[in-house]
């Protein structure tokens, strides 16, 4: 058969209608092209903002991956640090003036610097924690090197900034953190190959410090991991049970509607409110310790609960009712149907929801302020009740520090945080792809 339109000769009226449609069609095509352009423009705008953000963070932070070190030749007086049998005495090692030893050795290399103020200025090239670093190095080694040894010691943050080109040496001397004299010494050390830039491993193996060169993100990372562990432990089972109840057991009616509305409301509550709740209930009423990742995790669990409940309900609803009906029809109880048949099928969705909720919690600072996790904490937490901070908190604290070197470190910490977030989100996508079932 041929096309019926060709067969019937259209009358004038139909012809006019066809033309009208053809004209309209042009307009409609134009409109949809415009919409497409707007869409592309919106995406380009969003991507360029993201690109600007990432470039700023990376260009501010990439230098923090390196740390400036200075080579010093010194002799460690073993007799002042050892027991009689040659092992290192920790008490003696703690009380020994390591900083003095390093400073003396360093000053000895500049015999023409004699005035007290000049000597002090020279000493400012060294890290204030140089002595502590050397002590830990020796303690980790377990033995004291005999005779003259060459060691690489961290420089102060100001020297670090100069070496990385983040301190403008063309500025007026009074407006610079390093004097002409100090820059002269540094240049002579550079000429002697006694200053080097090395990988900043401290950043990944230490917790917070007041000296940028000794500060790291390990403490905050461990704190975050601990808090999120508690969050998952509490939020996941509670949320899944709540969702199963609401989907399968709750009698439809006003009470259920009321609960549903409130879960959605809860998802929109500003996170600081959960912090206030944590302060009043967990710290005030239950007397739990301040600054502990346990409490942080509990507060974040409250915050992520609605997210997980909503995701779980959606994925339970996505499981065809026929599966439940078949289970019930074969004599399974409602609980057996829910736990043995529905939940395993809904698991990928639940998992995705949980990971997204946890990723959200990882980026939170506001609720942690109230419960004392926004604090200066030098020791890496070992248990759930040790004081700890979290990654975003560490970024916040560093960005508020006066020392310029913290600025680049906070950018590097942002990169670490983003890496975690991206990993979590990608794994959520991959898990969903792998386990998702289509009916």
């Amino acid at each position: 058969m041929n096309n019926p339109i060709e067969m019937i000769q259209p009358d004038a009226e139909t012809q006019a209608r066809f033309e009208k449609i053809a004209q309209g069609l042009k307009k409609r095509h134009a409109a949809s092209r415009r919409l497409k352009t707007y869409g592309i423009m919106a995406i380009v705008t969003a991507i360029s903002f993201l690109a600007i953000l990432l470039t700023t963070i990376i260009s501010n932070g990439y230098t923090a991956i390196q740390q400036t070190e200075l080579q010093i030749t010194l002799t460690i007086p073993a007799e002042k640090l050892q027991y009689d049998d040659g092992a290192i005495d920790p008490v003696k090692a703690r009380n020994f003036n390591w900083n003095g030893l390093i400073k003396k050795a360093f000053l000895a290399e500049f015999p023409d610097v004699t005035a007290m103020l000049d000597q002090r200025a020279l000493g400012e090239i060294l890290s204030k924690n140089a002595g502590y670093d050397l002590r830990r190095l020796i303690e980790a080694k377990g033995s004291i090197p005999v005779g003259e040894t060459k060691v690489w010691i961290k420089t102060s943050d100001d020297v670090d900034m100069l070496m990385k080109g983040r301190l403008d040496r063309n500025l007026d001397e009074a407006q610079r953190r390093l004097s002409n004299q100090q820059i002269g010494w540094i240049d002579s050390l550079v000429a002697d190959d006694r200053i080097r830039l090395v990988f900043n491993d401290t950043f990944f193996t230490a917790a917070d410090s007041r000296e940028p060169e000794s500060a790291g993100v390990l403490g905050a990372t461990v704190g975050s991991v601990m808090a999120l562990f508690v969050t998952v432990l509490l939020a996941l089972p509670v949320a899944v049970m709540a969702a199963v109840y609401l989907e399968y057991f709750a009698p439809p009616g006003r009470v259920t509607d009321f609960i549903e509305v409130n879960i959605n409301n809860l998802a929109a509550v500003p996170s600081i409110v959960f912090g206030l709740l944590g302060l009043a209930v967990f710290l005030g009423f239950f007397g739990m310790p301040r600054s502990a990742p346990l409490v942080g995790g509990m507060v974040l669990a409250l915050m992520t609960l609605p997210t997980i409940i909503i995701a779980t309900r959606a994925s339970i609803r996505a499981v065809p009712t026929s599966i439940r009906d078949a289970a019930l029809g074969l004599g399974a109880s409602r609980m057996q149907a829910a736990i043995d048949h529905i939940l395993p099928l809904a698991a990928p969705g639940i998992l995705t929801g949980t990971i997204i909720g946890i990723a959200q919690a990882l980026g939170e600072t506001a609720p942690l302020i109230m419960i004392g996790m926004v604090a200066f904490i030098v020791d890496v937490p070992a248990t759930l009740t040790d004081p700890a901070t979290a990654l975003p908190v560490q970024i916040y604290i560093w960005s508020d520090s006066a020392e310029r070197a913290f600025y680049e470190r906070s950018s590097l910490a942002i990169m670490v945080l983003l890496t975690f977030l991206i990993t979590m989100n990608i794994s959520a996508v991959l898990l969903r792809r792998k386990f998702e079932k289509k009916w």
Partner: protein
Amino acid sequence: MRFTPLIAGMIASLALSTAAQARDQISIVGSSTVYPFSTIAAEKFGQSSGFKTPVIEATGTGGGMKLFCKGIGVEYPDVTNASRAIKSKEAKMCADAGVAFQEFIVGNDGIAFANSLKGQHFEISIAHVAAALAAELPFQADGASDATPNQLKTWADVDAYTAKRIGGDLAGLPNIPVSIMVPPPTSGTRDAMGELFMKHGWKKLGLDGSGYKKLREDGAAIEVGENDSLIIEKLVADQNMFGVFGYSFFDQNRDKVQAALLDGVELNFENVASYKYPAARPLFFYVKKAHVGVIPGLKEFINEFVSEKAMGLDGYLFPAGLVPLSEDGFAKQVVARDAL
């Protein structure tokens, strides 16, 4: 049942929290101005004493006092930092909770009134600052009675008004809008600013009453959070803006900002130490007496903080921007320390 181990884990972790009630770590709260000094002392203490490093939160002076005065026991902080002396209201709160405390002065600080290095260097009187910031000012040259909302839009206006009130020459301030970033009300720096800039400047303007207490709300005074780095960034971005913050921050950022000459006195170390600088102030910390000897290391930490090697002219807090006490002042702190 597959949920059983999870539930068991939950119960176990809750039990763990109630078991770990004793605290072997000093807990410090309070002023964000004292925070940089307190943290340095704490880190040194942690490195050299064998005790754990104290945990320090920057809650602002007011917030710190609230936590500190709540009571005695491991759940309450041992020390609170303050960038002003304790208020009588707070002392009463402490007394009501049975908290006895010892006051220590850490050192001195000067409040900077600063703008970007690219802007004009101001040589002004605190009267100018007060006139620029007060919510209401009397505009008739004769009367202090009929105050009207502050209409001084530019620094040139402020200059003309101040010259009219206190007599003398114009300070040569430019015709740029008044825009000043001030610390939030929970900050001790704000309290000290109210006293040193506003109250004293108000008197200099020949005014009495308490009109200085209210800052203008027409956008000329901008309240910013306790983040001093942010203030510096904003000052660099907008050279017409001014910011109010502590000496240590100014000292660290000399390559970006300049402090105004106040009443002819430069903001520097000597002028703060001698209190010639009109906005110089002491910094404090308060120790809970009942916790000394109970919290491990508290006494030793005070000994570390209140010492020549920390607070002195040669001390390690000096490079961070702390202006040391006079010899007499320091001797008093040592007496208080030893009596603890």
